[in-house]
């Protein structure tokens, strides 16, 4: 580090669980009641909340995305995608049944056809989110380049798959560099430094997991002994899942630490183990909390399906005496309750603590370089996240 500033800015996270729980539950309920229309408002509000919770250097981020903009972008995407999904897929279906007497070929071609669009949508969504994110009153921004990104992503994925994952760091690095080098804060451009080979460090647990899994196969083929095979296999699988999390977190750390912005240097130091633990424990807690309404739903379901079985039991006879529609209604309500609870609780137990962990570990060195940065013009980003919304790219935030 060459900057002279002695005290980098640290980041505060001020979000609490209860307000987030109520916000996600309330907006989720409105989404259900409006047949999904409110989801554009839900996403905006939840994002606004998260952004405002993160305060690098004591100043909250602000998300200024507009639900109407999102709705507009979605409608634009519908105009194009309806054509693809309706007409192109029908033609594919026809060709597939005519030539191959089945629909597998159609699904395959249709899926492959969507992949470039998927990457395109990802980039466009990122552009919209950055264009609507502000810190200290200045806008972030991402230069246009979604098709270039889609093309590169396709080639990198192909290379990664052909190399059995060995060249994954190359993909991660170059795609991140493509995005970062087009990212702005105000008038100033970000720069991704470093080399792609530095990311191999992040792959270590994955390599160990691969060796363990290979050993599992070897043990199975040579000894046929189920116990050591199962133990090794279980260990290898858990380590593999951890390895994926580790790779994500570590590569993020390594890449972030090499980002520059006009002399400003970002640094993040998250713990992969901590993120893994938060995620696993968070989903466990959510699952346990869902068990209660889930159990009731299961009971009602059995009752709706096999009402006669309960008529004989004096304790449950009153239940089978209820009109069938009340049971169906109760089941539907419970189903949506579970759906809403699941989304609210994963926010509270997984997304929030993970984000808090990242925020707490984020510092900004050389903040005095920020003073020279000026505002950038507004990016109308008309399609907003329409395609990402329609294609369901990266569902969470």
């Amino acid at each position, binding site marked *: 580090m060459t900057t002279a500033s002695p005290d980098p800015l640290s980041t505060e996270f001020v979000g609490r669980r209860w307000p987030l729980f109520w916000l996600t539950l309330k907006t989720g309920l409105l989404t259900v009641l409006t047949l999904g229309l409110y989801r554009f408002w839900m996403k905006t509000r939840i994002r606004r909340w998260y952004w405002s919770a993160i305060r690098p250097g004591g100043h909250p981020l602000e998300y200024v995305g507009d639900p*109407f903009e999102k*709705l*507009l972008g979605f409608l634009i995407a519908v105009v194009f995608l309806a054509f693809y*999904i309706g007409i192109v*897929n029908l033609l594919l279906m026809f060709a597939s049944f*005519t030539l191959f*007497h089945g*629909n597998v070929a159609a699904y395959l071609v249709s899926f492959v056809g969507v992949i470039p669009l998927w990457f395109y949508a990802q980039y466009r969504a990122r552009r919209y989110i950055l264009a609507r994110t502000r810190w200290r009153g200045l806008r972030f921004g991402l230069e246009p380049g979604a098709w270039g990104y889609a093309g590169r992503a396709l080639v990198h994925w192909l290379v990664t798959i052909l190399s059995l994952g060995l060249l994954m760091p190359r993909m991660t690095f170059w795609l991140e560099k493509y995005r970062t080098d087009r990212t702005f804060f105000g008038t100033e451009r970000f720069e991704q430094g470093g080399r792609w080979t530095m990311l191999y460090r992040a792959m270590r647990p994955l390599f160990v997991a691969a060796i363990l899994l290979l050993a599992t196969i070897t043990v199975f083929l040579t000894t046929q002994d189920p116990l050591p095979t199962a133990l090794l296999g279980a260990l290898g699988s858990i380590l593999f899942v951890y390895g994926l999390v580790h790779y994500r977190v570590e590569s993020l750390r390594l890449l972030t630490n090499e980002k520059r912005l006009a002399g400003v240097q970002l640094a993040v130091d998250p713990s992969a183990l901590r993120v893994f633990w938060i995620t696993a424990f968070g989903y466990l807690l959510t699952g346990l909390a869902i068990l209660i309404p889930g159990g009731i739903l299961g009971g009602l379901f059995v009752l709706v399906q096999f009402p006669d079985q309960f008529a004989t039991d004096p304790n449950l006879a009153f239940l089978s005496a209820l009109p069938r529609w009340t049971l169906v209604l109760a089941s539907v309500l419970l189903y949506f309750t579970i759906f809403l609870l699941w989304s609210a609780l994963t926010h509270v137990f997984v997304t929030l603590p993970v984000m808090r962990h990242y925020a707490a570990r984020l510092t900004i060195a050389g903040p005095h370089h*920020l003073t020279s940065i000026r505002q950038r013009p507004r990016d109308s980003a008309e399609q907003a996240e329409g395609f990402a919304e329609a294609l369901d790219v990266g569902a969470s935030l």
Partner: protein
Amino acid sequence: MSRAPLQIRVGNNAPRFQATGQFLSGTHASPQEVTVTVDEDIGALTWVDGEGETHSWPFPVIREVPDQAGRDIMVLRNYYDPVQRLILPDREITPRLPNRTHRAPVTKRGRLIAWAVAALASVALIIGVLVPRMADQMALLIPTEGERALGETTLGQIRAALDETGLAPVPVCDGAPGLAALSAMTDKLTFHVDLPVELNVVVLDHDMVNAFALPGGYVVLFDGLINAARTPEELAAVMAHEIGHVVSRDPTRHALRSAGSIGVLGLLFGDFAGGAAVLFLTERLINAQYSQAAEETADIFAHELMRLAEIPPSALADMFRRFQELGGDAEGIMAHLSSHPQLRDRIQAAEATEQVQAVSTLLDPAAWNALRAICR
């Protein structure tokens, strides 16, 4: 930070609002610490920024930025300025801001409406015009094997969609004596005609009083229908009607149409409501509302087929009456038929058409009982 609590001003000695806030000018990345006071004469928050410029935001134009996680501060914006922000260290000023929670302006309302109309129009055009036209053409072009595969796939989807247990698709009934009786009935019914496709009659173990045709010569009968019919002739009449649809390739057109429409509706409604749209379309498929003309053609075909097989066409009228009797009690499906005003016309048509005398019973009682027990 020096600040007096907000009070109603009484006389000249009343305490004045004063707070140390952060002003984000929206032009550069340096927040400015400013002293914010209230200008009581015009009713506005006012402060002097780092460049010496005086800002004055009248209370009615001040909005609070919503959904903030940190309640320790208050982030304010001006309705007429998209980028400037004033961050106050507490919420003391709240009662003075009459429009604090009002909406920010909606931009591009016109464009929004235009695209909404375009989106709905393109979906309507695709589902209402393009997909049906293409499906009609494709139904004529698709080769027999392809059509059969389409029928098979669609049957699989319908069986999965009708399942209520969440465990396995609705089972196909295959009691051997029942199948033999069913095939005897089908053979008698089609003995005198040369069908363009091979028939494949399937019975599903479901209480619905219904039957439908699928591409590739599939005629699907529900157990509920078999048990609602009082005579083999009534059942044969429904089968003859469905064979009429098979011959006209109505189901092929229908299946291709729904294949083109399901995805579009799923797209429009998003995740979980999209599932409902798919179910709805599956229901449409079973409950195939073919055009008036298509139904009449299938009826006329059925009359002819029954005459050739020496079954009185009035059996179709009997079966329709059965639907009418069951009316709303019958589970789903044929309900639309029974409430349909055209049903009376169709009963009259089946009775007015040239009748034949039944030479022998279509199935002997033993075979008929076997068929009724096909799902047991």
